[in-house]
């Protein structure tokens, strides 16, 4: 056990700045819980005084990694932090510790893995931030379609207005191609048209990435303008404006992905 303690202590210095961010979180919430082991002031991950692992606290993913709620993230640094935290939090490291510490390590490392996985992926990161902002994403997924098919309910459709005509045309083509497929026939012209549509959809999809980046920059700029870096300091109106743009983009993106998937299925 003492080997575990000195191991953690030796690495305390390296993670210190992360801990101070996390400590700030605690202070903001007005919590000043003390360390279960030595009674001193506790930090989110490890006690600053004695280095013992602390219980998991509900923390948002950004705070876990000591990051502000900005959408542009240095993924290289995030990865390095992930590895560093893994070395300290993974259950393997606590295999000879008390059952309580093992439980905490299990909770915290799963929290960390979830956080890393979400923040690493641009879309997941965006969706997560929107969730923190209280936005419920409308499901465009195939899942929803299946559910609808099963229960007989109509699926909520959110067709992007600029695609209405294309989508109408495409749906007809897909119907025809599906019927052909069922009867074992192939229409080369139809297949070629579908492939062209798919290519056009895919390039629209790529263009969306750039558009999303611009919204990220807008959002980050809002944070930068506040002095505290605190999201709550931004006027709701300005937040909503950027939020809505991102929600709209994600819906469009999801819709296009589904279309591409439908075309792929029929062309197989």
């Amino acid at each position, binding site marked *: 056990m003492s*080997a*575990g303690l000195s191991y953690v202590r030796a690495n305390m210095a390296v993670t210190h700045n992360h801990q101070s961010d996390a400590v700030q979180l605690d202070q903001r919430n007005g919590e000043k819980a003390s360390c279960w082991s030595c009674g001193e002031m506790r930090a989110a991950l490890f006690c600053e005084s004695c280095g013992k692992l602390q219980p998991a606290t509900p923390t948002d993913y950004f705070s876990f990694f000591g990051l502000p709620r900005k959408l542009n993230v240095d993924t290289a640094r995030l990865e390095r932090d992930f*590895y560093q935290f*893994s*070395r300290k939090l*993974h*259950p*393997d*490291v606590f*295999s*000879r510790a008390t059952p309580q510490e093992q439980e905490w390590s*299990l*909770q915290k*490392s*799963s*929290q960390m*893995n*979830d956080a*890393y*996985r979400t923040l690493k992926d641009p879309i997941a990161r965006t969706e997560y931030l929107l969730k923190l902002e209280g936005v419920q994403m409308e499901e465009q997924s*195939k*899942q929803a379609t*299946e*559910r609808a098919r*099963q*229960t007989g309910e109509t699926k909520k459709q959110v067709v992007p207005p600029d695609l209405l005509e294309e989508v109408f045309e495409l749906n007809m083509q897909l119907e025809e191609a599906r019927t052909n497929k069922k009867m074992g026939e192939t229409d080369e012209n139809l297949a070629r048209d579908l492939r062209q549509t798919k290519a056009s959809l895919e390039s629209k999809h790529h263009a969306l990435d750039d558009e999303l980046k611009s919204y990220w920059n807008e959002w980050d700029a809002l944070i930068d303008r506040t002095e505290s870096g605190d999201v709550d300091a931004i006027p709701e109106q300005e937040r909503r404006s950027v939020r809505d743009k991102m929600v709209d983009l994600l819906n469009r993106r999801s819709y296009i992905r589904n279309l591409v998937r439908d075309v792929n299925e029929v062309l197989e």
Partner: protein
Amino acid sequence: MADERVVGIDLGTTNSLVAYMQGDRPVVIPGEDGSNLVPSVVALDPNGQIIVGNSARKYLIETADRAVYSVKRLMGRGVEDVTEELKLFPFRLADDLQPGEVMRIKLGDKDFTPPEISAYILRQLRRNAERFFGAPVKKAVITVPAYFNDAQRQATKDAGRIAGLDVLRLVNEPTAASLAYGLDQKKNGIVAVYDLGGGTFDISILKLHDGIFEVISTNGDTHLGGDDIDNLLIAIALDDIEGDLKIDIRRNAEVVQAIRKSVIDAKIALSTKDSTDLEVALPGGKHYQRTIPRALFEQMVEPILQRTIGPVKQALKDANLEPGQIDEVVLVGGSTRIPRVRQMVKELFQREPHSELNPDEVVALGAAVQAQILAGGSEATKDMLLLDVTPLSLGIEALGGVVAKIIQRNSTIPASATEHFTTGVEGQTAVAVHVVQGERELAKDCRSLARFDLRGIPPMPAGMPRIEVKFLIDANGILHVSAREQRSGKEAEISVQPSYGLTDEQVENMLLESFDYAEQDFAQRQVIEARNEANTILAALDKGRGGSAWQMLSNDERSAIAQQEKFLRDAMDKDDYQAIRQAIDSLNQGTMRLAELMMDSAVSSALKGKTFDEANVGEGPTAPHPFAPAEIDSKR
């Protein structure tokens, strides 16, 4: 250095091994017969004793219905999943199985669940390690195929518990192999591990850097391996025999097993030779013989090998990598010795695969490394850390039988997800959650893990309760569920009905039974050994009676010896080994003088007319007393 011994165990379909870290290198611990591999075969001998390993193999051919092999293929699976496959096995299921019960396999007049059979193998490995160290071994890391689902993992953990082991961690086989490889090569980069064993196939893609072994994606088929190749060849042989020789020997389990042995030998031979002969003696003095060139063999098994390509492509896709971006490819598992497999892997990844480490041993070696990492305190392993993933998506069955995925496949573990449920009926106090694993859209196409009943919900109007359910996949890849009703803050009681597994209570009972059995085992072994010794001493006594030394004893001495001899013979008839030992000891005492006299006469006749060294003094007074065991073992 840890005081307590920790070992790594590869519990394989065909062979099992146990290994440990010797300094900075992992080393396989051999069995009593000196071999590193313990065949995963368990048999019931005519005396009702359980035999494991090489000695169990001959029972396959002699009394096939009293032996089990490849039990790993049955772990964590339901009867309906294995009915087809059971037709190819010589062993049968117990007759009195209820629906929903864990399957039991008949061995003679006894029956066992797959975890119990695996526990016998684990116990054998544990004994081998304890014999090697001269100390007890309780902690082990056990490997499982990366693609094993929750039920299969739980069954393996249960087997460990029944064998009296504290399973420190379940480690995925390809990951373990990469540990052995990484320790050996100390390189950074992207590594693909292609693991084709006796019954399972895994492909894992890992990123190695600075001692961290991070799995990026994994895929496989828990039903694909060398056994499938064997079964195909057996089927061809049976067809041949039926066609050419007009005999249907499918029902004759022993002959089928003989064919199986021959087919396996041929398969192995073809890895180094261009052609080999399949030869089997059939009942009625007939003989089956067929020459198999390697080209024909490759043609026959190609469809089986092709089945590995889909998972490889999917794993690469999930990792977002092209084959060219893989730095190293490592081959694991006996079946990768087949030249066509090597060629296929080389074509897939456009590079020569590594096989410097013995493909049969590398998984056990890696498990030993992980065991050391967990035990801590080793210079060689102090910077090493394994970050593995869950291979299958975890989902909940939602309205309409559709799966709502809550944890994606290839998520780094430990991983968690929180879902919220509510009640549909006023005053409802329990909610049922059906958890599945798999990638399909409908729950019925996925693997059912368990049904969780969340009870103790405070009665409220329908839709009011907010039940928060937390799903957590731990570092072993096993699921844990906890639930709380948020409005009242009450923890819900969760009763888990594993779909294909044993309940905790059942495992506990099996563990207790196994103690009794083990004790019985132990006691029986002691009896056998004591009887053997008794026979030795009685034989020596008989010999002594015919010699001159016997004449030199007094009548009292001779009748005392006769009494002790009778006492010993009586004790031998019973099963009390301590009584036999006591009788042996008293007979030893009684015959001390006789032995001395016998030795004296032996020495004097040997020395007659010879010099001291010519008389071969080694057989004289310094030789072990003919009536006593060579070593005085006071622990008995």
